[in-house]
């Protein structure tokens, strides 16, 4: 079914008519994560920096006066400096529709999207598929300022289920979440823009620690996680996460930009299990 959908998408990308626009979006950069293991205790907290690259290639098709379709094939990868087991490649496809309610740059819009990607890690325990459904709505408030709200459902499946505790699932990396978010961008100058955002995420978190009774009693899946060491154990727990984002973008011409951003994640799970992440990243973005 999925293969058929991707084949149809590939056919659409290659054969869509003369009215279609090419889409070629590229990103490359680095991202530091202060708590890659999503752990609470200082000796469990592992930080690392990843080099990242992503590519989306496809077509954008105006279907009607205010309705458009975007279909892309997507590839991405990450290479970590310390935890090489997390190095990964992702290959997938995405389909999105967007509708404007009115004419002009200030007309509100709504969008929907669906995507699927195959995830292959250097350490195969995280290999699997990632499925996403998204809804969004937004409006440009002035020439310099726009805002949007979005919803995202994400399901990551894991190929392997390496249970270590009899009677408890080993599918630590089989994760589902729902997320709502707000985002706003403001153009400070003709080259510099500032973005702020907030997401509220409700769903599974994979936390890796040494054996920990509190996490054990609050998790619903447990498996060994050799990426962070021979004694590391991965736990799947349910958490509420708040994400605060701030970023700035510097335009290099019409198609390229340099972006710097930071995120603060605050996750709260049952049993007083709180996780804090700080992410700092820089990237170069190109769009055809």
């Amino acid at each position: 079914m999925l293969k058929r959908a991707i084949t149809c998408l590939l056919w659409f990308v290659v054969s869509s008519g003369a009215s279609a626009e090419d889409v070629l979006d590229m990103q490359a950069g680095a991202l530091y994560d202060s708590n890659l293991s999503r752990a609470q205790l200082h000796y469990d907290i592992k930080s690392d920096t990843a080099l990242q690259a992503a590519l989306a290639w496809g077509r954008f098709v105006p279907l009607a006066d205010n309705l458009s379709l975007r279909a892309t094939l997507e590839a991405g990868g990450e290479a970590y400096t310390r935890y090489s087991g997390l190095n990964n490649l992702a290959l997938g496809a995405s389909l999105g529709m967007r509708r404007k309610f009115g004419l002009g740059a200030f007309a509100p819009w709504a969008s929907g999207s669906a995507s699927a990607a195959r995830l292959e890690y250097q350490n195969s325990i995280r290999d699997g598929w990632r499925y996403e459904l998204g809804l969004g709505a937004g409006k440009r408030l002035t020439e310099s300022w726009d805002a949007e709200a979005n919803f995202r459902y994400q399901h990551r499946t894991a190929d392997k289920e390496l249970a270590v505790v009899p009677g408890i699932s080993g599918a630590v990396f089989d994760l589902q979440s729902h997320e709502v978010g707000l985002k706003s961008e403001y153009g400070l100058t003709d080259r510099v823009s500032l973005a702020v955002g907030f997401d509220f995420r409700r769903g599974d978190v994979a936390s890796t620690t040494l054996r920990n009774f509190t996490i054990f009693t609050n998790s619903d899946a447990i498996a060994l996680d050799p990426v962070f060491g021979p004694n590391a154990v991965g736990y799947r727990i349910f958490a509420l996460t708040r994400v605060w984002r701030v970023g700035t973008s510097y335009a290099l011409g019409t198609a390229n930009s340099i972006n710097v951003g930071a995120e603060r994640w605050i996750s709260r799970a049952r049993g007083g299990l709180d996780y804090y992440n700080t992410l700092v990243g820089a990237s170069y973005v190109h769009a055809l």
Partner: protein
Amino acid sequence: MCMRFEVVRALIALALFGAGPAFASEVVASVRDDSDAPVAEAVVVAVPEVPVKLPAPRLESIVQETKEFKPFVKAVLIGTPIEFPNRDDVLHHVYSFSPARSFELKAYSGTPPVPIVFDRPGPVAIGCNIHDWMLAYVYVSESPYFAMTGADGHARLADLPPGKYSVRVWHARMVVHEPETAQPVVLAGTSATEVVWNLKLKRDSRIRRTPTRSGGGYR
């Protein structure tokens, strides 16, 4: 006698019509911003106190190329038809909400068969409903005497008949309303009259085309 009469008549006709520019005046306009930098793409209009017969309008065009309108500002005489050829290999959906001329050319490629006639004076902002950053202005002049400033902030309105004029300036980012810029000018003989404005401009806050990490694009 008859021959002498014909010569005098010819000289009078030459003075009135054929050699008009020799007796015409000109306005040299200088437009600068409040930091004294030259302002380009400002339209300077001289409106004669006594209405003059307008020449027949000619077809003009504003093209869409590399997902931008070219030129950014076009000044035309009232009644001018403008065509909007799409030279990109993607669709454009051109529109305007401006009181002087609202119109919509739904998503198209090539050149629409019927040009848009700009038959009311004033500025008209033009956009593309697909590519929100695309922007251009048509300034529609009710007077045949108008010109646009170059990079040096200067514009020259030549061949103006002697008489009284109200000279105005319009710029897409100026803070004041156009009528407030009006200056009375009396033209006599062949001398050039200089008109100067120092305009306070809003910052250039056009919609950004460049992509960001978080997307924010039109697709």
